[in-house]
């Protein structure tokens, strides 16, 4: 059986949650194989990352180089190619680094690549059976991957169980000298922090959130009227921002804001995982969607199959009535 490596992402010296999830993914591939954590970085940040990893991984391969002070996937890939033994199975979180890093890594190591894996069902000979999703989560698929010569597998953040650190004391193996001089045709300059926008949706107790189902820009006003009646604020999913109907600062999801309202009214939002990943603190979710099979109904507390343009004005009216009554 091939060695299993988990590529650990970290930021400001803190290990990303995905490190603990990769560990449980590795156990599902082979419960008897101890996965090796592998991480690139620089300075004291990298040292504290490795110290943290010692508690959950038995072995940690550390690649220290000033070039990795910021994780540029083009450089990280070159380093991994130099240190990974042939035939390795490499697990990487499917986030902005994994999307950047892994397809090219699979080509350079001449191994198959499986993207955005939600579950691992087991092995059938040299083939590994995994679960993926297609069409924005509307449908799932079993995918077989020939792992006989190794593989690069991107793991969806949040899909695997978070394994709590034990009291282990893993060995740190410094691989830095094996890397040598390193450069790339792509150079990281700096990070541009998102503008805060007119309201901070992350601090709102109630959000009326709109998705593609709002259909056109003029209909945003219908959601705003409901939000006004509730004393809430309108947020949205990605397609609404892509269409430039709302500002980026109103977007909920991995590429937008993380929110933690008490009540979340999802209007015409299908419920893709990138969107749901931005919802924290277990809000009470009320989903309104005209498609009775929309994935949002699987995670919502209450669901209504309805046309937004008809239902939202009625809900607005009823909310106003209720507030009038309670004001008396």
């Amino acid at each position: 059986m091939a060695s299993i490596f988990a590529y650990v992402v970290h930021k400001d010296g803190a290990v990303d949650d995905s490190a603990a999830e990769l560990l449980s993914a590795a156990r599902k591939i082979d419960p008897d194989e101890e996965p090796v954590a592998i991480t690139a970085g620089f300075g004291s940040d990298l040292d504290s990352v490795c110290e943290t990893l010692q508690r959950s991984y038995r072995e940690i391969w550390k690649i220290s180089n000033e070039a990795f002070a910021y994780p540029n996937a083009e450089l990280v890939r070159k380093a991994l190619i130099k240190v990974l033994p042939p035939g390795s199975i490499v697990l990487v979180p499917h986030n902005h680094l994994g999307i950047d890093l892994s397809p090219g890594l699979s080509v350079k190591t001449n191994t198959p690549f499986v993207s955005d894996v939600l579950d691992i069902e087991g092995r059938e000979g040299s083939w590994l059976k995994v679960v993926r999703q297609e069409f924005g989560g509307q449908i799932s698929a079993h995918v077989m991957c020939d792992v006989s010569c190794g593989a690069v597998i991107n793991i969806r953040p949040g899909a695997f169980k978070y394994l709590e650190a034990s009291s282990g004391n893993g060995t740190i193996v410094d691989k830095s000298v094996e890397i040598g001089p390193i450069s790339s045709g792509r150079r990281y300059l700096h990070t541009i922090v998102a503008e805060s926008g007119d309201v901070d949706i992350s601090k709102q107790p109630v959000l009326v959130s709109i998705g593609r189902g709002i259909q056109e820009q003029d209909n945003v006003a219908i959601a705003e009227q409901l939000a006004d009646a509730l004393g809430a604020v309108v947020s949205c999913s990605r397609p609404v921002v892509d269409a430039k109907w709302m500002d980026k600062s109103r977007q909920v999801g991995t590429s937008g804001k993380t929110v933690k309202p008490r009540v979340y009214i999802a209007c015409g939002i299908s419920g893709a995982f990138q969107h749901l990943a931005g919802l924290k603190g277990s809000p009470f979710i009320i989903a309104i969607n005209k498609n009775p099979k929309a994935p949002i109904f699987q995670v919502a507390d209450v669901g209504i199959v309805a046309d937004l343009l008809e239902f939202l004005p009625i809900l607005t009216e009823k909310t106003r009535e209720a507030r009038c009554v309670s004001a008396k």
Partner: protein
Amino acid sequence: MEILVCVRRVPDTSENEIELNSAGNDIERDELVYSINEWDNYAVEEALQIVSRVGGKVTVVTVGDDEDEEILRRQMAMGATHGVLLSDHLFAGSDGRGIAAILKAFIQKGNYELILTGVQAEDGAAQVGGMLAAMLDYPFASLVNSIEILDGKTLRITREIEGGNKELNEIDLPCVLSIQTGINEPRYVGMRGIRQVASVPIPTFGAPDLGVNPEIVGPLAAKIRRVDYFLPAAGRGAEMLYGKPEEIADKVVELVRTKGGLS
């Protein structure tokens, strides 16, 4: 600038509900409406905007069959200079690696400075651009949401990272970029524009024309195989509210109040 945009024709999820077929081994493909992959459409628009600023040509290419010509024509109606179809019975059933190998062979016959793909297609794999770059030994950046041309040799790009933040990079040409939705506002394509390009010939290249080794494409070379489709395991599931809209609305107001949302 010579720009190549790799595109794909996919079932349009805004026009169809994707459902399982009765055998449970595929999605129901009868009466599916197909269109250009949404991410690819942004990539073509970005290419057109770049050549309108600095000059050059935009070629759109796809790996597929005769039916895929319609999306090439649609992108030509948008303004792409050329459309090219890479088609061969050997190509059918290729995995992402196979598709990237076919595109690589085509790219090496040309002189493209910038190669764009969409971040992902309907299978959400987000893989062909990165594989292609590695095969060509070109620099790569994924999730690109802005492009600035610095000079003939370098681009300044931003990548979408977490929390709405962006990562600013310089990247040398030639390179491969995967384009994120929202980078621009793709122009509208009317029927009139599509009619105007209806008779423009679309060159087609097969495995022998491209010098593609048959052993690296097709189902036998694929080390990734989808074996079936199934419906996602149902979650806890929402309590569905039925009845007259007014009654449902009353219930929703009451629920919002109970959950502390009406102060």
